[in-house]
């Protein structure tokens, strides 16, 4: 049986044909890179952009307090984890809306106050951060720091 495909004669293409194909290949590659970048951006925003906002308003030797809010779910309680000097110290659920902010709830939606109390810290410098447990779309839960930077303070020696 004679091979059918081998019978076909392929002409060497003209230079302009080669140029058109090269342009098409480059354009396709560029568009695919753009699609990949778009997908990465969408995924990055969905997974890593913390919707949870908050503030540590006070930190001292025996307590840390502040507020936290999730604008996407203002009424839902938020689980918080207190980390002092890099060590998990306490966990709590912040769920009450602050009365003083109830009037302006539309502007500052669902602020939950929190206050952690603990045994007096030793004298010296300390860093404190509060993490909120955030459920990302899809499957996982992640810990999101409620402020961009840890709060640093120094405890003076007790008299």
């Amino acid at each position, binding site marked *: 049986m004679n091979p059918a495909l081998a019978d*076909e004669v*392929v002409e060497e293409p003209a230079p302009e044909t*080669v140029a058109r194909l090269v342009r098409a290949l480059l354009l*396709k590659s560029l568009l695919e890179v753009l699609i990949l970048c778009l997908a990465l951006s969408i995924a990055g925003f969905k997974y890593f952009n913390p919707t949870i906002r908050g503030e540590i308003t006070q930190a001292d030797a025996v307590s840390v307090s502040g507020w936290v809010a999730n604008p996407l779910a203002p009424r839902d309680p938020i689980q918080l984890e207190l980390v002092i000097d890099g060590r998990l110290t306490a966990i709590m659920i912040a769920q009450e809306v602050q009365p003083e902010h109830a009037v302006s709830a539309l502007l500052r939606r669902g602020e939950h106050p929190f206050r952690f109390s603990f045994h007096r810290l030793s004298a010296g410098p300390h860093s404190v951060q509060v993490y909120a447990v955030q459920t990302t779309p899809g499957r996982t839960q992640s810990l999101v720091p409620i402020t961009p930077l840890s709060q640093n303070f120094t405890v003076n020696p007790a008299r």
Partner: protein
Amino acid sequence: MSATKSSSPSNGLSWQTINLAEVISVVLSILLVEWALAPFPVSSWLLGGPPLLAFLLMLHSHQCRGETAQTLGFGGRYFDRALLLLAGPTLLAIAALIFVSYLTHSLHLPDRSWARLGLLPLWALLQQYMMLGFAYRRLRQFHHASQSTMITAGLFALLHAPNYPLMILTFLGGLIWSFVYERAPNLFASAISHVLLSATVLVTIPEWILPSMTVGYRYLLYHNF
């Protein structure tokens, strides 16, 4: 088809390089979806972007080279001959698969089987077109038939990674379909063989051998290791 008249560089790029670049580009589009985009929660419109671009590139390539649907294998030419060549290996493989399912008591109807079987003809024709009507023809222009057959079957298996049972099956299928396409280039006959074999695999192979037909990242996601 191997009779490319010369391989001298045109515009600084040889015709072989263009052929290779086209095949790699189309394969990368599929791998991009299977591995790089599948993990992200993006819309199916975005997931369909690279395959659509690959399809447009293939159409553009055919147009630039003056290839018609008839020469690619869409049409009646070589249909009978291709069907005759494919009948033996296809029926043999179906008989072997049914025998395996008889021994292992694995004859079953998978989930959403009718929907999957309904889409199978179109899906098979699309895969055969991409594998034979495009990749094989491009590779054949600068390789011998046996080399082109091996590379095409290898690429077809690669696109089904890391589902290794499916990779083995697609490699064997790729060898047969490429071998027959070389002698009787007809995509409808190859698609019929593809549909029959896929449907048989779907209902006969035990789930402990082939748990699913998923490929790429989704295969890793839905299987425990």
